[in-house]
């Protein structure tokens, strides 16, 4: 059992997925704070907006490493989410707007939970691939 490049790749993907997962948990905690009036919308939007672009950038970078390393399954899994992110950025809908946040809150929460579930799934998938590559290595 030794670490191949594939092993290292999926180790890196695992760490990144964990980070993205924690990011999504942070977002959903912030949304529930907003609903319980522990934070006001202006502060919420300022805090969340600092993480929106980095999260998308990190995910795009992960997708790129899958592309370059030839792990097609992992790349294809992440492509829909990447397309969704790109669509959001092009239409300028990625940032949170303090004046509209209460109106669009249900949509944002739903998006957050779906991404949370997706990142959790990919976390376990990368874990599986890493262990497989360690065992086969």
């Amino acid at each position, binding site marked *: 059992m030794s670490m191949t490049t594939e092993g290292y790749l999926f180790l890196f993907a695992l760490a990144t997925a964990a980070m993205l997962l924690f990011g999504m948990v942070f977002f959903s905690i912030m949304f529930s704070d907003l609903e319980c*009036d522990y934070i006001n*919308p*202006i502060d919420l939007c300022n805090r969340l907006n600092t993480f929106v672009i980095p999260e998308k950038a990190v995910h795009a970078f992960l997708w790129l490493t899958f592309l370059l390393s030839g792990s097609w399954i992992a790349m294809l899994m992440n492509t829909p989410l990447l397309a969704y992110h790109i669509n959001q950025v092009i239409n300028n809908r990625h940032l949170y707007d303090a004046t509209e946040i209460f109106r669009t809150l249900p949509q944002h929460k739903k998006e957050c939970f779906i991404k949370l579930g997706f990142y959790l799934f990919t976390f376990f998938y990368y874990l599986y691939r890493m262990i497989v590559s360690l065992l086969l290595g």
Partner: protein
Amino acid sequence: MPSNFIPPVVGTPPPPGPGGAPPGSRAGRRAYPTGDPYVNTAQQLDPFSASSPYDRPATPGMASPALGGGPQPQQYFPPGAQGQNFQGHPGGAQVPSFGGQSGGAQVPSFGGGAHVPAFGGQPDHPSHVQSSVSQHPASNADPKYKRCTLNAIPQTMALMNKCKIPFGLLLTPYRHLLAGEDPVPLINPPQIVRCRRCRTYINPWVQFVEQGSRWKCNLCFLTNEVPSFFDWDPDTRAHVDRMTRPELTHAVVEFVAPQEYMVRPPQPVVMLFIIDVSHSAVQSGMLATAARTILDTLDSIPNTDNRTKVGFITVDSALHFYNLSPNVSEPQMLVVSDLDDTFLPMPYDLLVSLTESRPLIEALLQRMADMFKNTTNVGNALGRAIQAAHKMINAIGGKIIVLQSTLPNVNEGSLKQRDDPKLWGTPKEVSLLQPQSGFYKNMAVSCSPTQVSIDVFLFSPQYADVATLSGCAKFTGGSVYYYPHFNAARSEDAMKFAHEFSHFLSRPIGLEAVMRVRASKGIRMTAFHGNFFLRSTDLLSLPNVSPDNSYAVEMALSENLTSSLACFQTALLHTSSTGERRIRVITLAIPVTNNLADVFTATDQIALASLLSKKAVERALTSKIEDAREALMYKLDDIIGAYKSAFTSSGQSVQLLVPENLKLLPLLILGLLKNNAFRTTSSVSSDLRSYLMAMLYVLPPELSLVQMHPRFWSLHNLDPTAGLPGPDGEFVYPPCMNLISEKLDRQGVYLLENGLEMFLWVSRGTSAQIVHDLFDKPSYDAIVPGKTTLPILQNDYSTRVNNIIGKVREVRLQMMTNYPHLIVVKEDGDPASRAQFTSQLIEDRIDSSYSYHQFLSVVRERLAKVSAA
């Protein structure tokens, strides 16, 4: 002047003194430290911090009281009322189809003798005051303050879904009092009594239990202690009958708020003027008129205890600040042309006390027009100006008043001339209605926490980009005023602006306010419409409470209602312009019913149409104008379809069945579809559309009614009593007519008023007598079309017509700070102005839209299709 001439009222009466508190009470003793902290404030206060004492929402997940089976909702409708017990067809108005009977004999309308009270009518619903605890006639909220679309609320969610009527409240908490209205009672009790759990204020609809020693909250049903001062006045040591207390007799009351309701001492009135001094502002005369008006109004600006502060910034491609310190002999101008960074040239003395620096302020205003009269500068740096203004007043809060003539084109916040007449009337027009830059909206969002509001006056000769600049006002509780093609050389333009501006500056307003609406258990708020910033799920932050603004709250049932009365309480915590912290509480109680027929019999069609207009504006701005129009049609189909499916058995019907209370709803929706804000036409500029949408979004129901269905009078055959005060002192208007061009007589003179403008239609065959009496002209051909001021002549006819016009203007000025232009339209005159007039005749067929009859038959066909499918 003839003896029966009523001179129009200009400006506003001074605000009433802080009377109303009983003797021996705490009226004279202030609840806050009296030293003025606003002279040199160093610390920044954050009203948004979590330790704010502002109303905290009730904690979620509160234990619901063990109510068991609640009492059955009693029928509050007096026996024999329509719709109570019916079989078969209820008392719905039956509107004949187009192919059926001829003529408009049966078609419901406002005209034809039906008397519409001057301000859109009040719903004829019993106010149930006999069920309030004091049974005082004022114990249910006056509809002018608060109205609900449903005056009988369905008890269960299933019933609510079945009736398909949008459930909402329309509030105007801080309206300007018209002549003859009583002021809101002001109370200064030793303690403000509130429910322990839901924090509702005590109101006329609570119940007293245990021999009056405890009171049961009507919103959450918790019993609370009644404090001893309710029955025993400690100051005079006498028994007081608690049922005479204003908290229990009046539904609209104002409390003086003690220190727990303040984060900081109440702020003074602060007005900071940002005046455009570029070439077009000076050429059009805007600068001179504005300076003149401010100068004339300086005495009427609210200035209790001499605390009011004012400041001026003039803007062209540089910013000019003015040192108005009382220690200098003349106002000094400081020019800042380096706009890379916002900075203030002097830390103090740019914002000065109105009383101390009065001579300097007067000197500045007198010279302002001359200082810039030869300017050739066409730049305008509004973005930087607003940032500088915000820096100047963010420690205190207040009003920033922007008077703008040129499109901002320098540095931050500059806007492009993006108007394109080819897009008007096409689906792509919505891109012109949305802001082109987020700068002004972000500016507004950062102003709101510091209690700064921005009001915008736009005077551009060309494109003013109302859509982007109105964002400043929209999120800070301000207002937008639009004067297209303003030219002070035309006296009507100058008069209109002067009247409106002086009313705007001198009326009482509320400052640093928050508003919350609470409702009975089982009702929750889903959406809010109006100019404010939503600070929490149900807390509206209003840096400035303007009497022009109304708010709409959409609600939904989250569980079945258990009590027989649903109550809605609005609390507005504000600082009055006299410098006192006050809480205005408005309580509305509406019976709950289990019977679908009662729900339909008790709807308020005017409130409903007003709520739909605001929803349509929101839809138009977020997606497309077509979507808004379709949504209106679908909603109308839904409502009438729900009525039809609930009360008729047949699928196809020859006639359109509409409940009695909603019989004018199709007409109002048609008027809304034909309003310039939503009409499919390429002759309405996108600026005008944005402005009308911004107006519709904040108008109270009486005024949105006039926008949807203008008032139309014939003047050539005036009744002898019309135009003069009637026997009960109320002004007598001529009878309103249907808005149909059939009514235009060959010899008639007609007046049409829609809240923003008045049109005077003069037919070709008008009698020479009228032409002479009214216009002082020898013949019809000599009458000048366009904006006019009617001469005040010494004959009875002219006096009465001028009385009518003056009365309309007085009321519109006080209700919405609008002094309508009077535009003369000749029958053979310019087609564009004729089209402006005829497009207001909503029952007619205009362009490719439907006439009223056709519209009704279209609705009937759509319903038949739906029920057959």
